């Protein structure tokens, strides 16, 4: 299973197809669609699943239509610590 780190949501109805985000994407995962939106522009779409959530596309987007998500690594919390009677073996449980 591919490990997906980040994702973006593009408001395609407001996209003007300037391709600045595609030029700024270090993963080359954005491309112009063959289809048109209701204003007659070819809109941008994500074609690869290798997004890292670096926010470069959203930073250069002049129409601020890109919303970026990044998977946050959950820190493992300590749940319990078990020690035997003599105290030489300690087991730590994490969530």
């Amino acid at each position, binding site marked *: 299973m*591919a490990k997906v780190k*980040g994702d973006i949501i593009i408001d395609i109805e407001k996209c003007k*197809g300037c391709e600045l985000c595609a030029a*700024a994407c270090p993963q080359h995962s954005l491309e112009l669609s063959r289809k048109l939106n209701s204003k007659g522009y070819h809109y941008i779409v994500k074609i690869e*699943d290798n997004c890292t959530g670096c926010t470069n596309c959203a930073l*250069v987007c*002049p*129409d601020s239509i890109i919303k970026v*998500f990044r998977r946050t690594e959950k820190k493992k919390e300590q749940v319990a610590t078990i020690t035997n009677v003599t105290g030489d073996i300690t087991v730590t449980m994490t969530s």
Partner: protein
Amino acid sequence: MLEEEKHYEDVIEQESICISDNVVYDKPETLTSTPMHYCPGCGHGVAHRLIAEVIAELDIQDKTIGVAPVGCAVFATTTSTLTCLKPHTAEHLQVATGIKRVLPDKYVFSYQGDGDLAAIGTGETIHTCNRGENILIIFINNGIYGMTGGQMAPTSLAGMKTTTTPFGRDVGEAGYPLKITELIAQLPGVYYCTRVAVNTPNNVRRAKKAIYNGFKYQELKKGLSFVEIVTNCPSNWKMTPVESNKWLEENMLPFYQLGDLKVPQKEN
């Protein structure tokens, strides 16, 4: 595991990312849902968003008064929830001065293009900077008159083709490109003067920092802050947005070098 099950797990995995906890970038609340009215790829949109972001971050939306320009950005009020005045051409800095003197607790910024600030309103610019009014001036420099159809501006580069100089700007006839930011950086009333661009993600981050500093210095009543943003104008440069950013990097930025021109001295 069956192929089908694997596929479903992938789908679930992907969908689970798009939750509110994982948002790392979204447009600020100070921008409305109205689409930007600019041409595709115009740097004005990024500049608007950066101002809106800084105002949202500092939480000064109800204390900020902007002065919108007469150029392309005249509809700045439709795309943002900020209060903006729209004076006549080149009267922005008088109006901004007036607002700031009457309402000294408000944050006042003016947003002007190169025709406005460096051609028609040069006198106002220099005298406002010389008086050291406690405002923030944001100067959008794309080297051309954008809204009126791509005529030569004072900031057009030597040899640059515009509708009024179809064979390239002749410096013998039309003069040399004006570096107004360098000019006003000499004035003692100016507290902070910098030049940034919005063509690459890193430059956008620096531009945001510069605008943030401008608002912060205004809060501390330090004096005038001047932020020049070098942008592109794909429609009037007659290029695609990606080409125009490349042209900007190769031709505009060597002449208009990015960086701080005047930074506050550290007080001991």
